[in-house]
């Protein structure tokens, strides 16, 4: 369905208005920051028995009223700095609370842009920021909540080459990333720099939280000296995630960071919190202490700055630091067709069977017409269904058996379809081909209205 002239005109007008709005917002932001600075300078000499200004006393009064937090806790918080790595599902609520509660300097690292399918859980971003850097969006939200703190934007991917420089400027680090190599890298960097690390993770309906490298406690490598196999690393973009689950873990990360920064309470070190949202259960378990044999923080040969900078985290964990989806190449070119070629076969009414090997709950989201859903794990058991579908197609078309009925396999991105075709070839379906790039390429090249997820 093409856009009408009217739709295009409205979109153009909205874009132009949004542009102006952004410029005005930027101007207001600058003026606001200037005003705050002037007011702070005016009041900086004037205190009332402690180091908090009149503004601070009123803004943070509910903290000051807590006997166990009080003026000293708030003053510690205002003098502290926290770096949040990742402005996604975990980082969003964490940043909102850290900005609101008055962490003196708040850093945000992220290299991604806001996408529509982030918004159900990455609650710091809104529709107006789709397509723009997450760091800009998150920083603007933090500043609009609290213009009196310093918000620092690090619009880059965190790597072993820049991590020391960025992380050294902060007192507490929050790991709100989404992949294994980043988790090892951030933990190692915290060990080298001697910084506490508040680590949260969430996938599906479960979350985990702990504090590493705090007060003689273990680091990430003490717990996980060997990286897991890549197949064991679930990602939200594949396995899904209920929006509120990272929300809860992100809030708890903010809480631990506040406790550490304010120097109150008992941070979650040598303990781990496990959240199972489906059964509404939270368990807090005791985990091992620092390991003397740890390759990062152990006594024998602690990690040096140089070793850290030269360490290849991607090859160590066999997975990339960024979350670009895997693109396998298992099949020779003649065992694959593009979505364009496949769409031509449909147009030409060539006899064929299309097998969709995605899980059935994916198939229910969207599927191509006349496709047969056989999820990859059940392919072995359901080969007879493919044989009979091929036979039926031949009979319907009045073809002799053995004549050219195509067998095509599709999945979401074109990886599982290759695995399936490899197996089908082995089982004697020698003409099976997979559709390169899967349904995503169908949506991109053939039907822009075909839903993607």
């Amino acid at each position, binding site marked *: 369905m093409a856009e009408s002239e009217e739709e295009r005109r409205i979109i153009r007008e909205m874009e132009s208005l949004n542009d102006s709005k952004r410029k005005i917002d930027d101007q207001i932001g600058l003026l606001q920051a200037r005003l705050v600075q002037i007011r702070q300078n005016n009041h900086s000499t004037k205190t009332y028995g402690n180091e908090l200004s009149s503004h601070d006393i009123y803004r943070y009064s509910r903290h000051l009223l807590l006997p166990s937090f009080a003026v000293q806790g708030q003053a510690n918080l205002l003098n502290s700095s926290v770096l949040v790595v990742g402005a996604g599902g975990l980082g969003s609520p964490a940043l909102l609370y850290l900005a609101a509660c008055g962490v003196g300097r708040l850093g945000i690292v992220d290299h991604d842009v806001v996408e529509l399918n982030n918004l159900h859980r990455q609650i710091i971003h809104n529709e107006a920021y789709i397509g723009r850097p997450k760091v800009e969006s998150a920083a603007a939200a933090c500043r609009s909540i609290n213009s009196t703190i310093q918000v620092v934007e690090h619009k880059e991917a965190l790597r072993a080459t820049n991590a020391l420089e960025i992380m050294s400027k902060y007192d507490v680090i929050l790991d709100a990333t989404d992949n294994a190599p980043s988790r090892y890298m951030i933990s190692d960097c915290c060990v080298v720099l001697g910084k506490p690390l508040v680590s949260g993770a969430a996938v599906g309906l479960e979350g985990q939280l702990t504090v590493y490298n705090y007060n003689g406690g273990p680091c990430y490598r003490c717990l996980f000296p060997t990286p897991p196999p890549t197949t064991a690393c679930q990602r939200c973009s594949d396995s899904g995630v209920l929006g509120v689950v990272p929300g809860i873990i992100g809030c708890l990360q903010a809480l631990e960071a506040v406790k550490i920064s304010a120097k109150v309470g008992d941070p979650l070190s040598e303990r781990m919190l496990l959240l199972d949202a489906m059964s509404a259960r939270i368990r807090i378990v005791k985990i*091992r202490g620092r390991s003397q044999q740890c390759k990062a923080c152990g006594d024998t040969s602690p990690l040096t700055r140089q070793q850290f900078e030269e360490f290849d985290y991607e090859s160590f964990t066999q997975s990339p630091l960024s979350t670009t989806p895997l693109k396998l190449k298992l099949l020779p070119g003649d065992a694959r067709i593009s979505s364009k070629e496949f769409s031509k076969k449909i147009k030409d009414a060539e006899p064929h069977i299309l097998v969709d090997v995605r899980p059935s709950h994916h198939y229910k989201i969207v599927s191509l017409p006349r496709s047969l859903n056989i999820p990859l794990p059940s392919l072995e058991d359901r080969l007879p269904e493919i044989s009979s579908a091929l036979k039926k197609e031949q009979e319907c078309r009045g073809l002799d058996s053995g004549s050219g009925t195509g067998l095509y396999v599709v999945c979401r991105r074109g990886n599982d379809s290759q695995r399936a075709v490899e197996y089908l070839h082995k089982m004697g379906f020698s003409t099976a081909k997979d559709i390169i790039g899967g349904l995503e390429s169908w949506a991109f090249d053939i039907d822009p209205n075909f839903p993607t997820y």
Partner: protein
Amino acid sequence: MQLTLEFGGGLELLCNSVKIHSVDVDHKVGEEKVQLTMKDLLAWVRKNLIKERPEMFMKGDSVRPGVLVLVNDCDWELSGQLDTILEEKDVVVFISTLHGG
């Protein structure tokens, strides 16, 4: 011996998506009941509960890297890992560490 076994962080997918299993495990040498260790339990779990991809649960005679084992809410590193001796009504949790966010 009555035990409660729990699987989480995606490991439940290896046992028909069931997270909590109440099981009765006895370790015998001949006719005589002997102490059950975590090593024995892992072999039992692999044989009786893991329905697919055992390599996602075990490596050698221990769990694969990235799996935390908790005996009565306590890291098994603190109780002797594979040599941990289990007792009646113990709760053993196997949880795969998460990386997403």
